[in-house]
């Protein structure tokens, strides 16, 4: 048995989610091979080769793989000759986008967003916005799986010395072409992996008021997140959304400010170690999951909190 992990990266750095996926792969028997498909991404392959738990790295480089468009990544993965029992990728927008294509072409029913490996063919995954946890057994010959990064602790990023092999990059499909990107620039830690997350909801009132949360985040070395309502209202960009249909986070400390705690929001943060809720409505459902609740006007207490840190 050999597991193939499809690396998520930006052609220079291996994303944290890839390390979590390697950790999930190492719960399976046999070797772990990492495929780095991209453009001018040797440095990514070097990082993957150093990661604990990796036995071999495959490097597939081509200009058309620069933006990792789903159709082209599919071709690059399908071009690999090894016989893999399991194919894994992070359940990020990268993995969610391309992985089902590979599953369909292999005629395999993908198992999405696993949170545990029970055995070679049995996995746990949340359904209904995390209201239920299903234990699913795959009867397909090959298993195609996306991994919830927050559910698997990363192994060491240094110390390994896997070999790197250059492999075929497949061919450009020309079904889709890259036009452009508008990425959120931030000096703060990545929302998905931050140790502390400060999130704001509709209660913030407008986008300017989010500056307050950014100050708080800077004091705590935190990432800033938001509820869907705050994103829909245009207070912050889409990539801030935490929840069932946004990002899943599980930091050491999650501070929810002006967020009511709808089930779809809870689905994205209730695995956080410590949850703090600041809300002026003592009936708000967020208090049912909060370790520490403060029933107050956020405009009064957030500045106080910034002061006292």
């Amino acid at each position, binding site marked *: 048995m050999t597991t193939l992990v499809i690396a998520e990266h930006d052609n220079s750095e291996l994303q944290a989610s890839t390390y979590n996926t390697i950790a999930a792969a190492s719960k399976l028997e046999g070797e772990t091979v990492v495929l780095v498909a991209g453009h001018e991404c040797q440095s990514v392959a070097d990082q993957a080769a150093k990661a604990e738990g990796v036995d071999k790295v495959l490097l597939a480089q081509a200009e058309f793989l620069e933006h990792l468009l*789903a*159709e082209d990544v*599919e071709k690059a993965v399908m071009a690999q000759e090894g016989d893999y029992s399991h194919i894994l990728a992070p359940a*990020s*927008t990268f993995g969610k986008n*391309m*992985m*089902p294509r*590979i*599953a*369909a*072409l292999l*005629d*395999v*029913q*993908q*198992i*999405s967003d696993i949170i545990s490996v029970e055995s070679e063919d049995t996995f746990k995954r*949340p*359904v*209904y916005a*995390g*209201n*239920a946890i*299903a*234990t*699913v*057994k795959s*009867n*397909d010959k090959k298993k195609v799986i996306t991994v919830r990064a927050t559910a698997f602790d990363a192994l060491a990023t240094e110390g390994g010395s896997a070999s790197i092999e250059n492999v075929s990059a497949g061919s450009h499909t*020309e*079904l*889709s*072409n890259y*036009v*452009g*990107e*508008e990425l*959120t620039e931030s000096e703060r830690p990545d929302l*998905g992996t931050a140790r*502390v997350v400060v999130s704001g909801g509709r209660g913030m009132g407008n986008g300017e008021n989010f500056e307050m949360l950014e100050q708080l985040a800077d004091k705590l070395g935190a990432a800033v997140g938001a509820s869907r309502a705050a994103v*829909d209202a245009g207070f912050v*960009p*889409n*990539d801030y959304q935490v929840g*069932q*249909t946004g990002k899943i986070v599980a930091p050491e*400390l999650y501070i929810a400010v002006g967020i009511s705690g709808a089930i*779809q929001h809870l689905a994205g943060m*209730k695995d956080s*170690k*410590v*949850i703090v809720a600041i809300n002026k409505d003592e009936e708000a459902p967020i*208090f049912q*999951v909060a*370790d*520490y*609740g403060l029933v107050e006007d956020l405009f009064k207490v957030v500045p106080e*909190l910034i002061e*006292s840190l």
Partner: protein
Amino acid sequence: MKILVAIKRVIDANVKVRVKPDNSGVETANVKMSMNPFCEIAVEEAVRLKEQGIASEIVAVSIGNQQCQETLRTALALGADKAVLVKTEDALEPLAVAKTLQKVVEQEEPQMVLMGKQSIDGDNNQTGQMLAALLGWGQGTFASKVDVEDGKVQVTREIDGGLQTIELKLPAVVTTDLRLNEPRFASLPNIMKAKRKPLDEVALADLGVDTASRTETLSVENPPERSEGIKVENVAELVDKLKNEAKVI
């Protein structure tokens, strides 16, 4: 251009889902069902493309039991021209849904298939991508903007880092994200009109697709409970607890 919209009937987003005591699944008896919210967004986008004169016909399709008729009638009331119900009593997996939709696409020959990025029950986020791969088409997933021009479609996608725009050759599959549009409500006259629009039924068995389950759900359990914590009186107490009790700052 003809657009096919795939819609799924799911437990309403506002229902608190309950796990069955025997852990075989979740309670669906006497539970309010609705069109999957992402599918509503897909229908709305199709209707807007028709209003702009880009789409000429909208066909809504759902795979499921007889009650899915209701959901399809809603799509017709919102502006779809015709509906197709592929009837089955089985809960199909995404791969089987994609294979079934592939057959419908071969029959209907749309230039675009619009669907939800995920359904809020299975939360799989697979079907659109699988359908695109099976058809050998391009895909624009998690769309927050769709522009059709000269036989191509530009799709702005919500990705983890922000937004990405790609251009796809048509035909293509587009899956919707939350910010694509705000779905309208069906008006009473349109609900009445929808009753007279065509709704075809085909039996899944007659399509000749292999829809056998590849996975078994061994159990469905409640997630670990989080116990309710305490209320603090003020910021000083909060900071003290975080420092000395939880030790997270």
